[in-house]
């Protein structure tokens, strides 16, 4: 069955430390991969996406993710986090073709403290 696994439910880090949020998927067909961020009591914002081409994708606020087909992973990284990065992060996948429904992981709570 097709699925998405976020390996860490909570990740506490100190400000300016690096962080990696892990995401693995299971699929026998082509995939399109996404990271969404949800700030408290808000909707989901698309953080970055992999559709094709370069396996390393970047967001405008310093996050990056790398698609690794052999390891079926799409981990999210940031070299130095800020307090304002505190949020829930969701990895999501569509299978087969872009535009189909997203399958979400269970989310990772990133808590950044000073």
């Amino acid at each position, binding site marked *: 069955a097709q699925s998405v696994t976020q390996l860490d439910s909570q990740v506490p880090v100190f400000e300016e430390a690096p962080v990696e949020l892990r995401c693995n998927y299971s699929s026998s067909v082509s995939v399109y991969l996404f990271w969404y961020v949800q700030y408290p009591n808000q909707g*989901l914002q698309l953080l970055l996406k992999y559709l094709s081409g370069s396996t390393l994708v970047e967001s405008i606020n310093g996050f990056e993710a790398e698609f690794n087909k052999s390891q079926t992973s799409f981990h999210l990284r940031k070299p130095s986090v800020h307090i304002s990065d505190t949020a829930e992060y969701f990895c999501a996948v569509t299978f087969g073709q*872009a*535009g189909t429904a*997203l399958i979400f992981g*269970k989310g990772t709570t990133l808590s950044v403290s000073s």
Partner: protein
Amino acid sequence: DTAVSQTPKYLVTQMGNDKSIKCEQNLGHDTMYWYKQDSKKFLKIMFSYNNKELIINETVPNRFSPKSPDKAHLNLHINSLELGDSAVYFCASSTSGGQYFGPGTRLTVL
């Protein structure tokens, strides 16, 4: 300009009532969705429409009925509300480049 909007943002109602949530997108997308986020923040697809036609209908009780009057709108009507329907409901629209979500509607059934 709001890309995907939902109304209302909060909805508090009694068990057994019927309620609707409206969604509109001004992105020109062909496909729209309803997702449910439960109390543990897990997100799951409920319905998907493409050009006003139902594409995905997950195992959702038939008390939930989506309606798409045109490509820019996808409303969700819920009959005979139950306690377990309490959740945040998100509308989304998409192109091949990804899905864009509305701000969500927090439904509380008392």
